[in-house]
């Protein structure tokens, strides 16, 4: 198989990718999984590349996962967070980007509070831009690692019923999952209190459940989203306790599932709010495996955007390209 598949300069989201491109990201992640299992976790795939991790919002998992992916591929990396940088001095995004560019970098991984920020940056600098989460828009690498984890357990994505549960309206993870999963042939639903489900979501090709029991009855896979405390203050839900009672994923609710259900969570979890500990730590949960897969998926993304060929990924690990 030598048909070259092109990925463009950036990964800003899954919405405009083809099923084939998404599958290639997942397939390319497979050979990279093994690197993290080695005693010496380093291969020369991105040797000499300079990557900036530009994080305007707090992040532990995503930032560290990208950083490990970059370092295990031998890239030189710099982390910039909004606090303690020129951002607090009032520098705008364009100027920050242009200054980084002037230092001759190759790639930027960005997390930003505003939807569209990754596209905005990608349109203005020649470096590769990877979206590490932009506002309420997309978080493509999270969705890729979710899909990889689902595929690991269910064998395939096509034909599966996946329900995303929780705060859909504010979730970039939800949107990227919806785009990615529907392209790969899954049936996708969302479930949450209607205050947290955006208008027009059906037009993205998903169905909506207003009660979590219906979602559990229907689904093969639940992707449970974090409920942020601020949502209660903003009046979307009356209390966290009530949210847990009516929308939380509990062991008692899962017991009623008609089939063996897989539970994902992008983290960080609020135990006892959207997910109970018995579920998070229980047999249905693949939450930590998502984290492990995150590193491999991000290696694949970095490799492919840097111009690597999918079928050469195995060889590239040995320094041959």
């Amino acid at each position, binding site marked *: 198989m030598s048909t070259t598949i092109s990925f463009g300069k950036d990964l800003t989201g899954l*919405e405009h990718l083809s099923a084939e491109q998404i599958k290639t990201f997942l397939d390319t992640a497979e050979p990279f999984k093994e690197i993290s299992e080695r005693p010496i976790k380093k291969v020369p795939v991105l040797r000499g590349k300079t990557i900036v991790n530009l994080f305007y919002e707090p992040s532990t998992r995503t930032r560290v996962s990208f950083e490990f992916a970059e370092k295990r591929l031998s890239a030189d990396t710099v982390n910039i967070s909004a606090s303690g940088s020129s951002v607090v001095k009032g520098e*705008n*995004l*364009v100027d920050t980007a242009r200054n980084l560019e002037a230092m001759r970098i190759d790639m930027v991984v960005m997390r*930003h*509070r*505003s*939807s*569209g*920020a990754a*596209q*905005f940056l990608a349109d203005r600098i020649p470096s590769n831009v990877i979206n590490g989460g*932009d*506002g*309420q*828009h*997309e978080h493509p690498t999270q969705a890729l690692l979710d899909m990889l984890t689902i595929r690991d357990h269910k064998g395939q994505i096509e034909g599966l019923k996946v329900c995303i549960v929780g705060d859909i309206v504010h979730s*970039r993870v939800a*949107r990227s999952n919806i785009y990615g999963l529907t392209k790969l042939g899954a049936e996708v639903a969302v479930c949450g209190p209607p205050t947290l489900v*955006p*208008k*027009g*979501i059906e*037009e*993205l090709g998903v169905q909506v459940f207003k009660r979590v029991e219906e979602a559990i009855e229907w689904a093969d896979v639940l992707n449970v989203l974090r409920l942020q405390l601020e949502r209660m203050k903003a009046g979307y839900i009356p209390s966290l306790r009530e949210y847990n009672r009516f929308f939380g994923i509990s062991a008692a609710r899962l017991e009623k599932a008609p089939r063996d259900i897989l539970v994902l969570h992008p983290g960080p979890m609020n135990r006892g709010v959207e997910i109970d500990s018995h579920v998070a730590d229980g047999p249905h949960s693949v939450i930590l495996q998502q984290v492990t897969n995150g590193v491999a998926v991000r290696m694949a993304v970095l490799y492919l955007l840097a111009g690597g060929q999918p079928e050469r990924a195995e060889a590239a690990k040995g320094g041959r390209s």
Partner: protein
Amino acid sequence: MSRPILLKGGRVIDPSQNLDDTLDLLVAEGHISGPWRGLEVPDSAAVIDCSGLVVAPGLVDLHVHLREPGDEHKETIASGARAATAGGFTSICAMPNTRPPIDDPAAVGFVRAEGERAGYAHVYPVGAVSVGLKGEEMTEIGELVSTGAVAVTDDGRPVYDTGLLRRTMEYIQSFDIPYFSHSEELGLSGNGVMNEGSVSTSLGLRGIPNAAEDVAVARDCITAELTGGQLHILHVSTRGSVEIIRAAKARGVRVTAEVTPHHLTLTDEAVRGYRTEAKMNPPLRSAADVQAVRDALVEGVIDCIATDHAPHHYEDKECEFDDAPFGIVGLETALGICIRELVASGRMGLPDLIDRMSCVPAKIARLPAGTLAEGSPADIVVFDPEVRWTCEPEKFFSLSRNTPFAGQELVGRVAMTLVGGRLVYDPDERLPRGGKESEDV
């Protein structure tokens, strides 16, 4: 005094006199003589050949933001008034949401005086309803009117307290001015940045539902009904508003409404790609809404067209979508968009369009404009109704360039604009130089 000007052989369209004919029009002493056939022309007159062109009353824009005082890098009263003439407008109403706002007589006088000093389009100040636009305490509306305000509004935001709204709509009746309403229910618009719907959902941008406007328009119409005050709804964008206004008019409520060229033309699809030049409030709506406001304009439920010209500096819009300010410029594109969308497409005749861009808005704000009747001030637009041209923002007279119409082909372009008998916009130098050689045009 400047010499007389004869606009010769143009298609003179003046809806105020039900006139649409090929005629000559003489401008002398700042006023209109004629339009007549076989006019006796003074020797001193400069003759301008207007064959193939439309001669019409200068356009009137009830809704313009001039940014002075406070944001003169975006627009000044002079630059905005000049941009207006390039778009065929001879009278514009300046909204009070400047920094500081136009909420006292001195500020009203300043806007009026700067407008006069600039010498382009007539600039009519609109005063604030509430002190500091805070929605709490009523301004000295009588004083504002006596120094030149032609209407009051808190545009940019609604008068949220319905008690204040009621008192305002009662009080303005002593001064015979309209209340211009920015109709928005803030509890529903929240911190939205674009129309709520499938596009906002897919872009992950916070939505402003149609209901945010509908609810407010309903409240405003009901309050107008309660008080008998004259209500003018600014920038109608939803099909729901149209139905509410239609019903209010049927009940005899004193309400008029305007629509912008962009709400007549573009949908929220224009936002895709996070294009900040398509960010405005009210936001671009769905195709069904565009259809509804167009139909309402043709039918007369929406009375007139206004631009909501809202200049913003390049760097203000060159940012993340959430952070960009609302608003687009409109003065220099309005006529070309409206002819393309309404006339060239056969929805509306040229006389009707001129009525809605000149005569009707002049009546709403009781401005001395919107007519070519003999003896009226010579505020005149001359335009080529068929020429196709490309919108190039870098050529605007406005200090700002923020338009989603950049690169689009527009139909109909202003050839000349006269204000008070003076040719203030003449890009092709049609006015012959000197006095005597004017016969051989």
